[in-house]
């Protein structure tokens, strides 16, 4: 693993009972890039991201995050990796501020908390009076903005965002995309985000992996993939790669 490599995955397999969800994934993600994991529902995106976040154990294969082996060093990895699960909610009885403070405390202890929360407030982009309200009163868009902020504000070496815009309206989804793009550059954080939205990925990500039925079909810059497959956009490339069918 080179200094530049934040994630290195080799021959990764994961089974749930008789079902093999990941069937030999090979992947390298470099420092500072926004990397997209793209595929339809059930492709294995969430399982891959959970393994990278240290929450699931691989059935076989090698996974290294920042030079640490997963699952052996999962406890150490969690200090440097911030993860936003798909559809995760805020703590409803806590305010937006308190939700930000909770994750700042979890990652940073009691030092630098105020600075992190300040950054979180900037990332969330919500008025102070809204952040002072209990999160149970938030719309889905507001919740997601605070959740994304809580993931990025702790300046993780690697941020993993699972479907960060799923279920959001156009305006909220656009805000989240722009936030990811902007703060990944400003904070120098490596970001992995999953999506089944090809348009979104092409807007935000430096490189992508197209994943289908537990296998990576293609990985690289979007322009490289399009040229290699002979497609005009990512959606067409994906359809061509899976042979025009569906899972």
């Amino acid at each position, binding site marked *: 693993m080179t200094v530049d490599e934040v994630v290195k995955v080799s021959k990764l397999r994961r089974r*749930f009972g008789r079902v093999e969800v990941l069937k030999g994934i090979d992947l390298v993600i470099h420092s500072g890039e926004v990397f997209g994991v793209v595929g339809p529902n059930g492709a294995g995106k969430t399982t891959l991201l959970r393994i990278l976040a240290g929450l*699931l154990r691989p059935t076989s294969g090698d996974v290294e995050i920042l030079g640490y082996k997963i699952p052996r060093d999962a406890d150490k990895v969690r200090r440097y990796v*911030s*993860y936003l*699960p798909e559809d995760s909610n805020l703590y409803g*009885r806590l305010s937006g501020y*308190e939700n930000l403070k909770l994750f700042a*405390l*979890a*990652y940073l202890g009691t030092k630098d908390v105020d600075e992190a929360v300040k950054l979180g407030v900037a990332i969330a982009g919500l008025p102070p009076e809204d952040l002072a309200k209990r999160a149970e009163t938030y719309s889905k868009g507001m919740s997601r903005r605070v959740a994304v902020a809580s993931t990025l504000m702790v300046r993780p070496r690697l941020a993993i965002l699972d479907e960060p815009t799923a279920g959001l309206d156009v305006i909220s989804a656009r805000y989240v995309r722009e936030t990811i793009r902007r703060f990944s550059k400003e904070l120098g954080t490596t970001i992995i985000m999953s999506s089944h939205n090809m348009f979104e990925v092409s807007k935000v990500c430096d490189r992508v992996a197209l994943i289908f039925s537990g296998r990576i079909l293609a990985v690289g810059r979007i322009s490289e993939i399009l040229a290699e497959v002979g497609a005009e956009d990512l959606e067409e490339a994906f359809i061509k790669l899976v042979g025009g069918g569906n899972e």
Partner: protein
Amino acid sequence: MSDLYVVLWKEIKELLRDRRTILMVVLTPILTLPLMGIALVYLPSIQEVTVAILDEDRVSATVGDLTISSHDIVDLIERYLVLYGYIVVKDGNSSAQVVLRIPAGFIANLTSYEYQASAVLVKRLGSPRVDQAVSYIEGLLNYVSRVVSEAKVKALGRLANITVRPEAVLSPIAVRTYLLTPSGMPAGTAEELKLYLGRVLALSLAFVTTPAATYIADSLVGEKERRTLEKLLSTPISRSSLIVGKSIAASLIGLVGGGSSVIGGLLLYIAPALMYSADILKFVSPEVFAVLFCSSYISILVSLSISLPVVLRSPSIRSASLSSTLLIGVASVVYIASLFMNLDELKMPLALVLAIPYASLASAVVRASLGEYLKAVTYLTYSLAISLLLILLSTKLLDPERMITSKT
């Protein structure tokens, strides 16, 4: 340590804002215990029961120095039953739950030296208050029987020209019962009543078990259902801090529950006392309430520590709650059993029941009400140790993969 602080910070903030749970924990013992006192003491006395007394004899007779009539007997029973709230009628009322029939010839037989008098008592099944009426009537007839027997003995003594004391003939064996505390100190009915109330207080522990068991289930599995668990597990917070922090927060519910249990216990004493202007409060012992408070708190620790391993392996809040219900059932059985027996005096193998921390906690309250504080503290310490041990073991059982991937 800072991990633990983070979990506690979150849990306590959430807990303090969960006003409904706190309200339930506070109100349950405060409402139910005085109600239990009222139910035990007052309600049975207001149930309407009709007693019919049929005097078919209506004669009087003399035996020795005593002149007695069926009217005297009926009058005695009627006055006594009316005093205790019964409705007494003197006709063949078909709706009467108890019928006493004094047949013709009753007084003649009662005052004779050859025959036994027979009264007929009929009761309809179905109410403890009816049983109580029958018991009163039997007691009063026994009293009359005794008075007549004494008159007969005296008369026979005079006939035989010997000195006769009726009790020497009728009760040649006198039994004198002395009450002692378990430590051998003289005791009176006050101590008996204290013990009885102590057993009722031990039963009150059942009320504080429920909130803790359901709270810990919700605290862990509920986070999954509210979709907050996965992100929390992905943070650097250690598994042990997560479990210990949540347990401490749940035990705070225990402190609140323990406090309100003590208040409820006091009300249990006060409610019937207010009704009957009785001075039951003189039986209140601060030490017993201190032990009750500790037992309530530890009962909650025990509940959550036993719940934890099950909850950690429950896929949904429903299954976690059902597991907790089972636990609450066991606790209730133990606490109810403590109402009727001293659990710490059972012989082997039943003595093993004391290994169940709930049994030890109930015994602690009962022993405290008997003034045996060393035993009470021993039982409290044992239960506390078991619960802390189980919490520590549970920190090893938290498997994030299982919690995340199990279906709700």
